[in-house]
C-alpha cells in the first residue's frame, strides 16, 4: 500500500480498525448487560468508520466518498444509540434489570 504524507502506512489504520471490530464482536459475545452490548456495537461501527476514512484518503485516487459514508454512519450510530437506550430503559421498567440473556419470557 502506498504511504501518504503522514508517513504512516494504511495497514496501521486497518489493523486498529480490525482490532476495534474484534473487540466489539468479542464484547458482543461475552457481555451480559444490554448497555455493554450497545457499547460493543458502537465499537464495531467505529471500526468500519476508521476503515472508510482510511481507505478514502489512502487509495491511489483519494475520494471524499469514504468521509461522506462515515458521516452518515456517525449519524446513524447516534440514532441507533438513542433508540437502543430507549428500548433498554423500557426493558428496565418491565424487568428491573438489563441482563440480556436472563430475559426469556418466551419458550416454545
Amino acid at each position, binding site marked *: 500500500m502506498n504511504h501518504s504524507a*503522514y*508517513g*504512516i502506512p494504511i495497514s496501521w489504520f486497518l489493523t486498529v480498525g480490525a482490532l476495534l471490530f474484534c473487540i466489539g464482536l468479542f464484547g458482543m459475545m461475552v457481555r451480559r448487560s444490554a448497555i455493554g452490548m450497545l457499547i460493543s456495537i458502537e465499537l464495531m461501527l467505529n471500526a468500519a468508520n476508521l476503515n472508510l476514512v482510511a481507505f478514502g484518503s489512502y487509495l491511489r485516487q483519494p475520494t471524499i466518498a469514504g468521509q*461522506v459514508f462515515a*458521516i452518515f454512519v*456517525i*449519524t446513524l450510530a*447516534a*440514532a441507533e*444509540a*438513542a433508540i437502543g*437506550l*430507549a428500548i433498554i*430503559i423500557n426493558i428496565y421498567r418491565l424487568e428491573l434489570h438489563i441482563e440480556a440473556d436472563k430475559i426469556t419470557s418466551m419458550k416454545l
Partner: protein
Amino acid sequence: MLAKDFLAVGVFIIVGIVFVAVTLIASYLFRPYNPSGEKLRTYECGEIPLGPAWLQFRVGYYVYALIFLIFDVEAAFIFPWAAALLGFSRTKTLAVLGIIDMVIFVGVLALGLVYAWKKGVLEWK
C-alpha cells in the same frame, strides 16, 4: 521517516510519565502524614456529599441529551454542506438546489423539534 514523525510523541509521553512520577514520589517523601476526618472527605473544600454517587438520574436528563444529540449530529451535515455550497456558487441552479435541500433537511428537523415540544419534553417538570 516514521520514527522522526513520532519522535515528538515519544518524547512527550516519556516527559509526561517522568513528570508525574517525580512529583508524586517527591510529595510522598516530603509531605507530613497527619490524617483527620475533615481531610479525608471527598471534597476538601468543605462541600459535604449527600448520599452515594451511584444514584438514579431523572429520565428527563436522558431526553434532553437525546434532543441535543439530534441537533448536534445535524451540524455534521451542515458544515460539509456549507463548504460544498461555495463550490456550487458558479452554477446558479446547483446553488439553489443545494439551498432547497438544506431547507428541507432543517425543516424536517424543525418538525422533530415541534414534536418534542408538543410532547412536553422541553418542559422541566
